[in-house]
């Protein structure tokens, strides 16, 4: 391999009590890729995200990001290394303004020290000003700037999803993990989301790993797809390969004529 992968996950596994939620999970992401992670409910997709972001500490395997091992690092350090995520159930700072949601994402990039903030020294002002300006620019990209003073919880659902992506991007990630961004969206909104994803990928030079149940979206934009079932990888490949993979059809997609399936 001539190019070093951005993310390399080897034999990753985690156990909750007796339950092996994920085992022997392998994944390689190269810079700029857009890869899908699909699988039935409870397959362990979100759990993989949680391990990548340090919310759960894996019980086996290793995660190598940008050439360095990530296992055991707390989530905030992983975010600072350049992995950012959205959540399956939206977790915005609901009572804060749209602007503040994004501005908090900028926290780690700002330099003003505690002392300079308390004493209101020049670095405080310059940093805060920059944070605010950058955040507003960001909101412009996501067409949310006119709502900057609105509380996040008052936004319509689709915009909340968009804001969550904006917030994740404001930490300056190299890798973005999206957990079911289209859930609860109607087909039209989903189409808009696809456009947005393509756009940010260009704009921010991102690598994206995506969990999604909406096949139109997944098949439409992913370059590669990994399929999990019962914590195990059952298939990997291009959308076309995965779509026709018998195991995937059996466990996940179903036959054209949906039958009772125990």
């Amino acid at each position, binding site marked *: 391999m001539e190019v070093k992968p951005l993310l390399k996950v080897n034999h990753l596994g985690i156990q909750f009590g007796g339950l092996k939620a994920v085992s022997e999970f392998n994944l390689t992401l190269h810079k700029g890729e857009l890869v899908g992670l699909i699988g039935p409910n409870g397959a362990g997709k979100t759990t993989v995200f949680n391990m990548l972001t340090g919310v759960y500490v894996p019980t086996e395997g290793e995660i190598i990001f940008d050439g360095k091992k990530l296992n055991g690092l707390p989530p905030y350090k992983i975010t600072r290394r350049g992995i950012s995520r959205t959540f399956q159930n939206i977790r915005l700072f609901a009572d804060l303004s749209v602007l503040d949601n994004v501005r908090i994402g900028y926290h780690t990039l700002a330099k003003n020290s505690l002392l300079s903030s308390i004493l209101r020294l020049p670095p405080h002002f310059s940093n805060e000003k920059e944070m605010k300006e950058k955040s507003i620019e960001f909101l412009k990209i996501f067409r949310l700037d006119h709502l900057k003073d609105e509380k996040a919880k008052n936004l*319509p659902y689709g915009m909340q999803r968009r804001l969550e992506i904006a917030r994740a991007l404001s930490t300056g990630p190299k890798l973005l993990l999206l957990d079911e961004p289209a859930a609860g969206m109607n*087909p039209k909104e989903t189409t808009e989301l696809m456009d947005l994803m393509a756009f940010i990928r260009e704009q921010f030079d991102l690598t994206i790993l995506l969990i999604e149940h909406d*096949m139109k979206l997944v098949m439409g934009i992913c370059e590669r797809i990994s399929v999990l079932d019962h914590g195990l990888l059952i298939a990997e490949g291009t959308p076309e390969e995965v779509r026709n993979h018998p195991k995937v059809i059996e466990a996940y997609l179903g036959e054209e004529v949906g039958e009772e399936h125990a």
Partner: protein
Amino acid sequence: MLKVENINVYYDAIHALKDVSLEVKEGEIVTLIGANGAGKSTLLKTLSGLIRPKNGTIEYEGKSIVKRKVQAIVKAGISHVPEGRRVFPTMSVTENLELGAFLRRDKKAIQKDIEHVFELFPRLYERRKQSAGTLSGGEQQMLAIGRGLMAKPKLLLLDEPSMGLAPLLVKQIFNIIEMINKEGTTILLVEQNANMALSIAHRAYVIETGSVVLSGDAKELQTSALVKEAYLGGA
């Protein structure tokens, strides 16, 4: 069977439903489609008594139920499967089902209905002793529907039963909805997945920012340009 006329619902200052009227006839599947935040869930909550409308009438089997308490409405035969499943996470599958029949006293019949639910969802039978919170999303959705059926409803209100489910499960859920309907339960179905919903429904209403903007035969709506444009993802 159910007749809603000109109801208005507010959350403090937010006017969530504006003069909404609709009707559900016995034996039908009626679906309600609309964008996020259009007021679909609000409408279902109003029907089951969780929220009170400011004005307007709701008639069920000829009687007004606007002022009734939730438990009275459940007792009268309306069962609401809420958005986001809302199963009781630390209780077992069986206990959840039993709670669905909370107002019923016919122990034997309850037992039979539990078995019937297990027939509809064999997966639940496998997991009957497991606590509901540890079920996968699809299983929880099955449980929520099964729990709704345990009240022996004449009218079942379903709020986005396919949300967050794997494609295979989505198909299953829609099959089951059709099956329940064939067994005699009237259904009011709220869905984001407009295509699927319209294909199993008899009639449909389209709701936008709190108002009904369109209604009619489901198949006709499926082909209408406006619906296609707005809810079925373009052409």
